[in-house]
């Protein structure tokens, strides 16, 4: 496959970035998007040029490291996949692909396509956990949980914190992320103990970091590689008002 890549290049957070055009002549359709970028970087290194910096780790769609904005979509135009699982077969011969970093004030660019997502860590540190005594695993059936609710909690807990929701949202809102983190605890008895303090602390941190607010447009749900549902946002709102 022949492709034209328009990639955002930016040396660091302080300097201005720009799009640089790269021509690729020998992209195999079975390559993943990251493998295609690896091929580009190999070429750039051989030409003694600076390779394109991008985040990646597991390449199995579960770590949430790889995240880039491809042709107007976070993680590219295919629903429910991360960038590492995006196959080049979904692109057309001769296509021009625009590749950009996540754009949000709380996610400043570190270099090229890598953004600083520690804002998510800060939100998690504010309350995204339960305070328990560590030690031997307790008896599993001593605290009963309804099957339906534990399934829902699990569906929320599969959020990998990649930031696609923030990238997709017209307001750069982190509501889907936080709602998933709130839901995974709020639905289970172990999480109810600190539910009020948790939701207050996480929302406060979200506001403090400069994320936008939720307009219920649904872009986050449409782009989430783990298909986290908007119903979580309704639950987050509910939990927040209950915490008054």
């Amino acid at each position, binding site marked *: 496959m022949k492709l034209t890549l*328009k990639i*955002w290049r930016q040396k660091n957070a302080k300097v201005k970035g720009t*799009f640089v055009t790269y021509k690729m002549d020998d992209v195999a359709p079975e390559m993943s998007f990251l493998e295609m970028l690896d091929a580009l970087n190999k070429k750039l290194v051989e030409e003694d040029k600076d390779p394109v910096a991008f985040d990646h780790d597991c390449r199995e769609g579960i770590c949430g490291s790889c995240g880039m*904005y*491809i*042709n*107007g*979509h*976070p993680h590219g*135009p295919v629903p429910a996949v991360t960038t590492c699982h995006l196959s080049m077969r979904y692109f057309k011969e001769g296509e021009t692909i*625009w590749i*950009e970093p996540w*754009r*949000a*004030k*709380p996610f400043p660019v570190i270099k090229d396509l890598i953004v600083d997502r520690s804002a998510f860590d800060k939100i998690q*540190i*504010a*309350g995204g*956990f339960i*305070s328990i005594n560590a030690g031997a695993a307790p008896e599993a059936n001593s605290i009963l949980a309804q099957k339906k609710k534990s399934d829902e909690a699990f569906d929320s807990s599969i959020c990998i914190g990649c930031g696609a929701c923030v990238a*997709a949202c*017209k*307001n*750069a*809102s982190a509501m889907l992320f936080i709602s998933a983190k709130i839901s995974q605890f709020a639905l289970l008895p172990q999480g109810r103990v*600190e539910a009020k*303090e*948790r939701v*207050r*602390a996480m*929302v*406060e941190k*979200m*506001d403090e970091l*400069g*994320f*936008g*607010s*939720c*307009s*219920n*447009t*649904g*872009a986050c749900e*449409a*782009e989430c590689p783990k298909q986290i549902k*908007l*119903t979580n*946002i*309704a*639950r*987050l*709102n*509910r*939990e*927040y*008002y209950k*915490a*008054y």
Partner: protein
Amino acid sequence: MKSSHDKNLTVNISYPMNKHIFSSLSKKFMMALAGLFLLLFLPVHLIINLMLLKSVPEPFNRAAHFMATFPVIKIIEIVLFIAILIHIFWGIFLQIQNWLARPVGYAGGNKSETSFFSRFTIWTGSTILIFLVLHFINFYFIRLGLVPGHPENFYLTAHNLFKIPAYNYIYLVCFVLLGLHLFHAFSSAFRTLGLNHRIWTPVVNVVAWIYAILIPAGFAFISLTLWLFR
């Protein structure tokens, strides 16, 4: 004794209340509540306006007089104004914050599948605000004595206004935009209030669609009838 390390591992309980009241979620809550209250007002206004279609002015003028003088309505009117102000103020405030949250836009555009009209609520809302100002100049300010007119004969004032083609154009455009605003806003308000239900949320969505079509269509029908057939 607790070390500083332990302290980091418990959720912060000493949470100041003012941060709670003025958080983005609380602002959205106020906006949604105010918006839903405004939704209750529109059908009442429409029912009274339908009396403009009668050939005699008395029923409409009586209704207008009742609305202007009945004490309970007076109280509701104050609540209504507060609701309008809250909805507009927080709406603009949050929109500016939202713009600031993304200082650099996307060159590749934003092609995510969204509730289409949700992208334009600030613009449809702003147009409705401009219309509201015009509406107040035409009617409410007459009642307050700020602009000349017949405070006891709004039937005549309305009929005269609807004879002006330009007024009808503005009126119709504004009500189309109101419909687009409501298309998203009605059901969105419920999610903002934290209300979500397996059965009732789809029902609310259908009601929202019907409301967003019927109410603006009703106002537009009056405008078109008075303009073209009277």
